[in-house]
């Protein structure tokens, strides 16, 4: 007879739900056409990542984790979305992203990719101290989904959002496997992200100045 699946504790269940919302936000980015709505989704996603950090902080009682939760919320929920919005303001005329294939196809491929991520992590014997192991699997799935998002979209703003949400997946995985990682290292990651924002911003603007579009399609043509 089939045995009932074990029940996670209330804390583990909640942590898994928080991580799952982050994954669902990545899937929602596939479905969202408007670039501004994508930025908003990214802010929501980051909020839940910070929430996960806060949950870890509360159970562990480490001040470093509190600092991390606050700083990551300030950077990823407030600062980066604000910068992205300003960048989008300057690029008038392009409100919606471009898709390489249809939303339904993207979601179905996304399910397969997420399943791969889940089982790949399930095969690893990773022991985790604080957050449940399922959260690690979900984090890896977020990373893979973000890759897929960057492939499925051909415009630079969507690809930038995909890259940022990839960093959110890395944050979740980092929280699970290395909760006690030195704060300095985590902060470095965040500043890395700021560099990426600047790089994507420059790319968006140059592309827009040169070809009056943010679609990366124009970069595929060779010019002699």
């Amino acid at each position, binding site marked *: 007879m*089939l045995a*009932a*699946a074990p029940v996670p504790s209330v804390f583990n269940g909640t942590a898994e739900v928080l991580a799952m919302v982050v994954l669902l936000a990545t899937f929602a980015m596939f479905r969202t056409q408007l670039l501004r709505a994508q930025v908003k989704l990214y802010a929501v996603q980051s909020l839940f990542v910070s929430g996960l950090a806060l949950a870890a902080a509360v159970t562990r009682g480490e001040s470093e984790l509190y600092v991390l939760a606050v700083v990551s919320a300030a950077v990823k929920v407030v600062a980066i979305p604000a910068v992205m919005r300003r960048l989008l303001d300057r690029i008038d005329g392009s409100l919606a992203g471009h898709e390489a294939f249809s939303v339904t196809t993207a979601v179905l491929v996304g399910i397969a990719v997420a*399943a791969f991520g889940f089982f790949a992590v399930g095969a690893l014997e990773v022991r985790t101290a604080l957050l449940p192991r399922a959260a690690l699997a979900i984090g890896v799935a977020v990373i893979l989904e973000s890759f897929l998002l960057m492939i499925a979209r051909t415009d630079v703003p969507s690809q930038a959002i995909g890259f940022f949400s990839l960093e959110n997946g890395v944050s979740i995985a980092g929280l699970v496997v290395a909760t006690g990682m030195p704060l300095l290292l985590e902060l470095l990651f965040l500043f890395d992200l700021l560099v990426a924002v600047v790089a994507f911003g420059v790319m968006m603007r140059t592309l827009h100045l040169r070809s009056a579009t943010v679609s990366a399609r124009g970069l595929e043509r060779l010019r002699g």
Partner: protein
Amino acid sequence: MVLSPAAIQALQVATVLFGAPLVQGVIARVEARLQGRRGPRVLQPYYDIAKLFSKETLWPDHATWVFLAAPVVAFCCYLIFPLLIPVLTTYGLPLGYIADIFGSGFVLALAAFAVALAAAESGAPYAQLGSSRAMTFAALGEPIFLFVVFAVALITATDLPYVEAATVRASVAQIVRPAHLLAAAAFFLLMLSDTGRIPVETHSGTLEFGMIDEARTLEHSGPLFALLKWGSAMKQLLLYTVFINVLVAPWGLASTGAPGDVVWAIVSLLGKAILLGCAVAVIDDSFAKLRLFKVAGFMAAGFLLAVLAVLVLFLGAG
């Protein structure tokens, strides 16, 4: 005094039979209020059904007995379904175990099949269009239902609705586990599409091109049409009951046969169904209807939630 299980079972059917139009009437009223209209009386669906029963039955020239039998078959299916799910009690009633969740799904599918067959039989273009659309989207909804059942089976090691409800009642940990929440959310999306709600369909629209479920019954009239209307109200309440009493809020059910408990169970079920209906009405008023080609994307979203529920369970957690 204690009510016998058979009496309670009969009461389950009666609750759904006579409560469904009331729930529908309240939802219609709330919806009208949200749109700034006064709206019909809460009891209007009862008057509509009574009026239709006193009208004569007309049918298309070339229609056969299938056209006339289908509404009765569908109605009977909706009368059988409440025997199989926990409508009023926490414990299984005598006929409660004759079918599991799959079996109950088949009963609902048979009803939908009968109505679709009658629509095809009528030979009218709009009815046929509705029936073909309804069948197409039902086929897309099937995998969602399957994966929700798989998730429930992995959580409880059975596929009996009573056991799932008992599991949810057992502890907070069972409620916040992601598999349960994802499966419930997937079932909610399936319920929206099966009850003909936005974002899949406007149930109150009069434009045939946008119709799915509503278009199937365009050729029926008189008592048979009354049965179809009543049946669709019952289907709505039945799906709400599964959502509430199996997945989301299985509280307020009678755990003994005491008449007071059973009456309270009836009142609380109708109350919860009306609350859920209000939530659905708010969704109805805050979103636009999807273009027909986008419905597949909506179904894909439901499928995603249901598959993730099963995947999380396979991770050994969730």
